């Protein structure tokens, strides 16, 4: 029941906030959001699951109830957590709370609607990570689109309408493709599957895969479904060349939405890749490892190069997210404990770090009303603590040791370098690792131009220190980043416990 409570609190909170007066909406939403945060931390502490949720694992906080049945397939409310999803649920809860806090300053109209949507998105995100029935999962997966569309559209920047619709339609098309591929697969599995429960489907996939469908052989069907689903998720991740919605969405989104977008929404894509493609299709992973790794490397390098060419701080971080997600793909395709585990770790880590980066950019934007690197310099002079945290975050992004980013990247690199499944793994890894140089290039360049140098900013008011609540939430994130960097095993053991069955499922 815990997960239901978690989701219900956020949902009811969303409704309450939606009708609350604007004046108190921010504080109210914060108070409400503390409940899921506390609950998720409690879940974290009380976690007693083991193994992989899809592969006969011992689920934590599992609950299941029939929903409907159509054509011999049952669809149910089926939630539960394992070592992969739990950290992401905690991440979601924490980032939502912090996103709410960081909205206090910039959001000054239609507050109750804004905070209502944030809480709504939180509920949906938690659902995405805990759902274990395909339809249930898909409901949450798609339901995230609406609040994000509105958040970008209503409170966004000058080109918000374009960005919002692009985000909305692009990712929805991808979902449709993915959906079609998956249901074809399920029908292809024939009588061995009687529900849309993911564990059942995963088991059937590993037990022999589909019998065939549309007159296609089982293997062909599985391959096509794999490709279709990969493409579908690739947009969400996003992977080059399906990434162009992301910078637009990030640049136009209000800061809190960017935090959630980069921090959690992108992880939906990689989480789904892990849950579906990389859990259910070991043979296809092996068959397509090289092209996928190539895509990953291209994402890393190309994304980083794009970031290098930007002068808008948000665009920089946005493109660097593309780059970071490339690492995740690389880790997944390595199909080793460290590779896949590192990829999962990177999901959490990148969530925290990109959240911190967007928060910092937001704080600077709130004070300066510009995000252009060329418009300002020497911000460290005016907002020393915020800038200090920003620098720390930037170095976290660059993979500074003892911060979570390094742990994640190291796990991925180590896992993929010696991967047996991926041909030329050492070469791919080495190429991808060049990303750590480029990331340092563009972040340091941006830092040098914006926060260092003589103070210069054309405003008609005095830029003052960042508000305490903003700095506090940034420090919370930084603390988490360092904690995970120093003690990755806090979640990594949990993750690898859930990863191992996947790797072994591939018979490797």
């Amino acid at each position, binding site marked *: 029941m815990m997960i239901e409570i978690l989701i219900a609190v956020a949902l009811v909170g969303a409704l309450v906030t939606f009708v609350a007066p604007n004046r108190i909406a921010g504080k109210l939403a914060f108070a409400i959001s503390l409940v899921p945060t506390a609950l998720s931390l409690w879940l974290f502490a009380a976690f007693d699951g083991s193994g992989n949720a899809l592969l006969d694992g011992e689920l934590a906080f599992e609950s299941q109830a029939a929903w409907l049945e159509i054509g011999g397939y049952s669809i149910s409310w089926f939630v539960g957590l394992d070592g992969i999803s739990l950290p992401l649920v905690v991440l979601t809860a924490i980032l939502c709370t912090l996103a709410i806090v960081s909205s206090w300053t910039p959001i000054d109209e239609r507050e109750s609607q804004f905070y209502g949507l944030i809480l709504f998105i939180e509920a949906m995100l938690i659902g995405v990570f805990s759902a274990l029935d395909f339809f249930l999962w898909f409901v949450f997966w798609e339901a995230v689109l609406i609040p994000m569309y509105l958040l970008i559209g*209503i409170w966004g920047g000058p080109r918000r309408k374009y960005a919002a619709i692009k985000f909305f*339609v692009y990712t929805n098309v991808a979902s449709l493709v993915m959906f079609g591929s998956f*249901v074809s697969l399920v029908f292809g599995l024939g009588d061995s599957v009687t529900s849309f429960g993911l564990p059942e489907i995963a088991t059937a996939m590993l037990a022999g895969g589909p019998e065939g469908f549309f007159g296609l052989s089982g293997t062909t069907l599985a391959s096509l479904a794999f490709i279709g689903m990969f493409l579908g998720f690739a947009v969400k991740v996003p992977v080059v060349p399906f990434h162009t919605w992301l910078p637009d969405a990030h640049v136009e989104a209000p800061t809190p939405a960017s935090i959630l977008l980069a921090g959690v929404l992108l992880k939906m894509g990689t989480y789904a890749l892990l849950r579906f493609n990389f859990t259910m299709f070991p043979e296809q992973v092996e068959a397509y490892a090289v092209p996928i790794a190539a895509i990953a490397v291209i994402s890393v390098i190309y994304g980083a190069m794009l970031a290098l060419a930007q002068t808008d701080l948000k665009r920089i971080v946005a493109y660097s997210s593309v780059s970071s997600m490339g690492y995740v793909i690389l880790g997944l395709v390595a199909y080793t404990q460290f590779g896949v585990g590192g990829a999962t770790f990177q999901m959490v880590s990148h969530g925290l770090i990109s959240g911190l980066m967007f928060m910092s950019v937001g704080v600077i934007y709130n004070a300066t009303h510009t995000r252009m690197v060329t418009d300002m310099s020497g911000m460290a002079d005016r907002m020393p603590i915020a800038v200090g945290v920003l620098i720390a975050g930037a170095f976290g992004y660059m993979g500074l040791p003892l911060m979570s980013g390094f742990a994640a990247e190291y796990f991925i690199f180590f896992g993929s370098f010696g991967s047996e499944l991926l041909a030329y793994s050492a070469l791919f890894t080495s190429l991808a690792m060049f990303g750590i140089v480029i990331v340092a290039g563009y972040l340091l360049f941006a830092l040098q131009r914006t926060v260092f140098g003589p103070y210069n900013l054309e405003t008609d008011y005095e830029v003052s220190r960042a508000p305490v609540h903003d700095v506090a939430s940034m420090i919370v994130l930084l603390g988490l980043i360092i904690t995970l960097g120093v003690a990755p095993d806090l979640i990594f053991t949990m993750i690898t416990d859930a990863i191992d069955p996947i790797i072994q499922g591939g018979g490797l």
Partner: protein
Amino acid sequence: MAVFQLPEWAALAPALILAGTALVLFLFDSINPRSTNRSLLAGTAVAGSLASLAVAVWFTAAGVGATGIENYGVVDVMNGQFIVDRLALYFMIIISIVTALVAVASYDYLRDHTYQAEYYSLVVLAATGMSMIAASNSLVTIFIALELTSLPSYALVAILKDNRGSVEAGLKYFLIGALSSAIFVYGISLVYGATGSLQLEAVAANLGAAGEMGGLLGLGILMLIGGVAFKTASVPFHFWAPEAYEGAPAPISAFLSSASKAAGFVLAFRVFTTAFPLEATTAVINVDWTWIFVVLAIITMTLGNFAAATQEHVKRMLAYSSIGHAGYVLIGLAALSTEAGDLVMGAAMMHLLVYGFMNTGAFLFVALAEYWGVGPTFEDYNGLSKQAPFASAAMAVFMFSLAGVPPFGGFWSKYLLYTETVNAAADNTVLLVLAAALVVNSALSLYYYSRLVKALWIEEPILDRDRLAQPTGLYAAIIAAAVMTVVILPAFDPIATAALEAAAAVVG
């Protein structure tokens, strides 16, 4: 077994209640044609339709039409001229729901209208016709019921006698309608010629005797399809729809696009499954008639959605979207040749029910806007959410639901339709083209539906508005439709079951 046994004709009670209500309203009209006692008139209409709904639901729950010892089984009325089975009851429910919503909304919409009693009686009379269509089991009764639906509809569309749009719409509707019914009745005559009977089962039984008249029968079937296409606003008989929906009073647009369309579909579902079983018919006419529906479905959904994408008028956009949805539902017929045909048809029926809420709600919102004096274009709707957040929220719900985005009811019906189409494609890979068309159109529909959400929620108003009134009836209808659209998502099981049973009543 039930405690007491009603006479057979009582099985038609949902339609009869509507007929009675219509007569009462007629009586009222003849006594006092200029009555402005809105509460009484609307109240009567609402009471009648709700009573019809209640009875239909009661019958469904009690097991009319269902097989098994404790149920009543299918009820034949008048020697098979009418039949009350799950299918009939299901569509009676849809029709009475829409009628009730429209009647409630009309309470405010007709505030300044002179001949109100006439209006309500026509609405209920048309609803009676639709209910009758659902239960008709002979081409005679079908034609009569069809005309009973059409004739009041023509009048209703043109009821704003001093409004050029309304009159033009009425004219076009009427002319195309007259042409279509001429074609339809000619088709009936040919079918009669080929088989010698008009009762549907008898037609099916005599198909073998058609012998050398296969060509005539084929032409007759094609003409019947024409009549159905007119009623459901499908290509190429759709031309009346954009103008009729745009010009008609908005509640009437809602009524026609939801209830009338549903009636057209139940007609198609029953006639083509009962009278022209696929194999027997193919043996005579040498063509698999589902192919016609495959082609029509693709063209209809594509034309509807593409034409909707760049509309400037909200109502016209909804009109084209309605054509697009007709295309979706046509898949239910297109997939009949496959093993999963009943599931696809069931999904199509689910879609019609959900559509009854969301599309009616959408048109009623337009009615509300017209009530407020908001202009017809998207720009005129800009920023309405600031004055009317709840109605605008409801409209957003309708739009997203129409687009099939969760967490709204439209998600289920659209994705189950998609799912089952893919399922059916196992036997007929051409259906994959249909599924692909569904994806493309769905993406496009997302664009134009969200365009309206954008206008309501994102755009700034182009002119300053005063506070907007909150007409009780319209609000009640809209909010009720919205709540239902949301509630349907978790509580979809009864709908799915009912729809599948309804489909099973005529297929397989």
